[in-house]
């Protein structure tokens, strides 16, 4: 079984949260990126997608795992992490200055997956923590003509199909999906394992296979064009409830809420 996991590099969301909190998040002169120097990491859901693939291997299935990322040379570091985690092959679609358009990205990833050939399962993160869209995997499934299942937290092989547990807004749902399938992974899967020392050594010796857009024959097409980023103000007007002790504070709060008419 050949599994492809799609991994995206993002600015560390906790760092962005703190910068935003302290008013230090700034948009650069292009208007389409942050000027902030924050660490780049693997999108956390994509790390969990690798974990999902590794668990299928732990279950005793004969799996080949290829990690795939579209981006510039800076994503080599992310792909090394994927290798160190236990992925067999790492592939980068060379796209150093690609705009953040999920539909364009999906075309690149689809072309790379077709180029790999016999893929049974594509695992993606449920959404990226920078643009929060969750549209790339859906577009990928459409372009490849694969089945599509979102927000999975448990993926197992059952005969010719996959049994997938989904974290839906209503609670857990189980579906059976035929392959090939694109499945997106949600955080309910749990914490991904750490790379092993051996994995890290293997990763150092294993360069990524690089594919250019020309080699893959990626076609142009329309998508979502990012015009600008901006930072909006959060209007704070908090009234702190003072009081001698928690009992007094609680009583004062309930008084305020009654006066507001919400109790």
């Amino acid at each position: 079984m050949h599994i492809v996991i799609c991994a995206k590099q993002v600015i560390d969301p906790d760092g962005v949260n703190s910068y935003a909190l302290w008013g230090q998040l700034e948009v650069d002169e292009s208007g389409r990126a942050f000027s902030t120097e924050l660490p780049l990491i693997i999108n956390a859901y994509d790390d969990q997608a690798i974990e999902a693939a590794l668990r299928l291997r732990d279950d005793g299935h004969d799996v080949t795992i290829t990690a795939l990322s579209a981006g510039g040379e800076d994503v080599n570091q992310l792909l090394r992490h994927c290798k160190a985690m236990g992925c067999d092959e790492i592939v980068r679609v060379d796209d150093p200055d690609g705009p953040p358009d999920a539909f364009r990205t999906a075309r690149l990833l689809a072309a790379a997956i077709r180029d790999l050939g016999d893929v049974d399962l594509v695992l993606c993160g449920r959404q990226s923590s920078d643009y929060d869209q969750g549209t790339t995997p859906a577009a990928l499934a459409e372009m490849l003509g694969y089945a599509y299942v979102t927000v999975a937290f448990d993926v197992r092989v059952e005969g010719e199909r996959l049994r997938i547990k989904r974290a839906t807004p209503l609670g857990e749902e189980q579906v059976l999906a035929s392959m090939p399938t694109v499945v997106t992974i949600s955080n309910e899967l749990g914490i991904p394992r750490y790379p092993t020392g051996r994995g890290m050594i293997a990763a150092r010796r294993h360069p990524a296979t690089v594919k250019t857009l020309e080699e893959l024959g990626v076609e142009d097409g329309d998508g979502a064009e990012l015009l600008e980023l901006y930072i909006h103000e959060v209007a704070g007007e908090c009234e702190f409830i003072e009081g001698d002790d928690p009992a007094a504070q609680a009583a004062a709060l309930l008084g305020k809420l009654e006066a507001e008419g919400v109790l």
Partner: protein
Amino acid sequence: MSGIIAIISQPPAEGLTGGDLEALGGAAALAAQTGEPVLAAVIGHSVSDAVAEAGERGAERVYVADAEHLAAFSGDAVVDAAESAVAASEVSTVVIGRGTNTLEFAPRLGARLGGGCVMGVTEVRPDADGGFAVVASVYGGSARAVYRLAATPRVIGLSPGLAPAPDRDAGRSAEVVAVDAPASAEERVVVDQPAEATGPRLEEANVVVSGGRGLQRGDNFALIRELAANLGGMPGASRAIVDEGWAPSEEQVGLTGKIVSPDLYVAAGISGASQHMMGCSTSRVLVGINTDRDAPIFRYARYGINGDALEVLPELIRLTRERAGG
């Protein structure tokens, strides 16, 4: 190509709610800007009430895909049916409200139709050339992005609260157009064990009391449940404690959880990260309880208690129990 179509899939028998009404409202708001007609597509089985309601709420024409295989949600079937409705109506823009299955089909439809899709749209802005741009949050709400979807037909996934539901006018009715939606030969994704929708919905609660990692231990989430019950509300959770296993994921509030907008939202031991606030910042009155006076929750809160949630919650429970006469 002209027209803005609101997609309503598997409408509940009791009448349109939540995301379906938001889609009709969003379509009306867009139509007001572009001058295009408001249309609707209703996808499901035995949906005549929903079709009538869409007409009463302003759709000029309603495209109906009514078939047995559309009774329950299936991504493949809904994308196929929506594609047929869009082909028949020749619209420029498809609008979809936030619902249980939106993520499962809206972006696929955008890819299928070729014009792409933006999810979580909070605002629509007119363009100089008579078109429009859309705004959606990025980094969980720390910033916003403006996008243009130049090609048509395009898909817009709405964030709750973009536009109010259009009023219902019993005197109005829509022209109804049936759309062919044959079942495909192969069912690629089959629901084996459905999620059971039980009890009241967090999204509709008037009061939500939520807890975060500041509760220190999983057992203490019982305090959240008890206070919520005393106030006639429902419990909510930050993702941090869902990940810890202190609360089930259906109770998560935020960007990747539920979006709620109650009269009263109490956040106890929750830092107020933007991703959490995406799910509750439009609440009428927001209360933060946090030991850290600089916690971001106090930027959003109307009232704050700078203190230990494990001391304040028991007092609130005691006082609200007395109020309820218990």
